[in-house]
């Protein structure tokens, strides 16, 4: 076991983890510099995409629904930077507006899934007994349904739309988080530094806040980022099938579905929205992968978490 080979003296923290009295900006920079380059590239890409989507009302050159039937399937040019689609609508404007739907649904379901799952998993581990059994059996049950099948079932009942999408993807989405958070909480509770803190007479709330939560959140954050791409793609799959975002609204996948009959004439119409989904999903995956490598590296360098000076 590598753990036992470690010196028993408390480790001195690195500059990045010391609560130094520096400006928040400098601390942010130091924290960023400590990350893997995948994290930084992913973050930069995602921030650029998010900024473009947030500024859409101001930067979109055209109304995304405005048709110009005399200018159908135009190639990229000075006026329409990315060309026009089969109804003469500006592709760039549609990409920006469509991205708002795709990314916001993915973010919303992910936030709901992660918080519900993490909370239920942690509670399950702390309360134990029948509650634990009930939650974990529910997780087993839900995990045996393919996600798309659950979504189709709910769409059959509730009809397609934004709310159905969010609901369908959350109903299944929380389960991996619950499983992970339960395991992590149990694991952290068993570690020596918890026992040590208890022996030192630390209050229960202090232990949970200072030791359990930070140790559980970091791996969960990594997995949350890794799940984002999956959510974005699943949301898109339903929209592609015509069961997601409904016209006149459309997201990236609906644009792709619209473009399929005209693909041979203008492949760009199909390539661009798919590329947008791919790059967005990849950027967040890179953030998660970078974080995960960071977690691994930190665990290798500091297998025993530093005890508070208290």
């Amino acid at each position, binding site marked *: 076991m590598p753990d036992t080979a470690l010196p028993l003296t408390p480790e001195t923290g690195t500059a990045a983890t010391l609560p130094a009295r520096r400006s928040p900006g400098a601390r942010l920079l130091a924290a960023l510099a400590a990350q893997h380059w995948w994290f930084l590239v992913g973050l930069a890409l995602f921030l650029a995409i998010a900024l473009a989507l947030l500024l859409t009302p101001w930067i979109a050159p055209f109304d995304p629904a405005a048709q110009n039937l005399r200018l159908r399937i135009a190639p990229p040019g000075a006026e329409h930077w990315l060309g026009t689609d089969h109804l003469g609508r500006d592709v760039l404007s549609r990409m920006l507006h469509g991205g708002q739907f795709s990314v916001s649904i993915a973010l919303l379901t992910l936030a709901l899934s992660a918080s519900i799952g993490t909370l239920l998993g942690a509670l399950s581990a702390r309360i134990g007994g029948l509650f634990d059994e009930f939650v974990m059996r529910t997780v087993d049950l839900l995990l045996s349904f*393919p996600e798309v*099948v659950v979504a189709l079932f709910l769409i059959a009942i509730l009809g397609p739309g934004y709310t159905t999408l969010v609901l369908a993807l959350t109903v299944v989405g929380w389960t991996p988080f619950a499983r992970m958070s339960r395991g992590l909480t149990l694991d952290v509770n068993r570690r020596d530094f918890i026992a040590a803190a208890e022996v030192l007479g630390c209050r229960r709330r202090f232990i949970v806040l200072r030791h359990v939560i930070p140790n559980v959140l970091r791996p969960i954050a990594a997995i949350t980022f890794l799940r984002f791409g999956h959510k974005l793609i699943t949301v898109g799959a339903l929209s592609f099938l015509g069961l997601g975002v409904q016209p006149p609204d459309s997201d990236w996948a609906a644009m792709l579905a619209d473009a399929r009959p005209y693909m041979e004439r203008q492949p760009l119409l199909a390539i661009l929205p798919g590329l947008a989904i791919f790059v967005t999903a990849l950027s967040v995956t890179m953030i998660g992968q970078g974080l995960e490598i960071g977690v691994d590296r930190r665990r290798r360098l500091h297998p025993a978490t530093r005890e508070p000076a208290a």
Partner: protein
Amino acid sequence: MLRSAIRRCVVMLLTLLTVSVLAFALPYMTPGDPVRSIIRARVADFAVDPQTAADLTVKLGLDRPLAVQYLDWLGQAARGNFGFSYTSKLPVAGQIGSALRVSATLALVALAVALLAALPLGTIAALRPASMLDNAVTFVTQSLVAVPEYWLAPLAILLFALHLGWLPSAGWREPAHVVMPALVLALRPLAYFTRVTRAAMLDVLNAPYITAARSRGLSMARTVFAHALRNAAPPVMTLFAVWLAGLIGGSVVVEVIFAVPGMGRLLYEAVVNSDLPLLQAGIVSIVALAVLINTLADLAYLAFNPVLRSARDA
């Protein structure tokens, strides 16, 4: 071992019961008159007049308590009788059967391709952890997860079917029809298989018996093939089973794009046409299959777990 086997079987039965209740309740949860929907499913006729409908309600026992109706429905379902499809007017069971065969074929081919690529990739990555090669494998496989199937599939059709003419664009008659959908489906499991192979290999390669084998003068290649791969296999096989269960019925998009007459497309059409009997039967059979595959995989994992085996040998 026996305890967890029993436990898994109990969970399996509970899952199936829950799903059957959900499927039974479907006509009551969807918009429209549930009694009308059920009559339509049983007699394959939509345009029954009010008098006939009232007669049928009594004849089919739709005026009985819901619990009794559920047990009756469950008994019929267990014998494979899910009524008639609204759209095709044919018994649902036959449609489900042929669709399951198609989806199972497609899923098995896709997963076999994914596995054959993932085992060497994961092993190579695990042999040199944190090296450039390891990072490259991780990066490429993670990128594959971010590729939407509904993007790759149309582009593949455009390139290989329309421009190059190497493969048929869609359908399900000859072996060539399997190639494109299977390759598109294989990408995501490929990424996950590689990840798990790498992790399992890393674990195994640190084990004392690997050091022992190496110190006996066995080459790294022999060590990997003779010892490591076999012991790293169980987690990969578990994941294989999970994906097999997930792809049968879960590969809706690929089946729709390539016009593959499988479970995914059947479910999609059932939703689009509000074909309740087809949807009920589809959901029950997909979940039954998924639960069965996962339970078998769990049991196999317990039975063949090398840790348990080596503990017994010791």
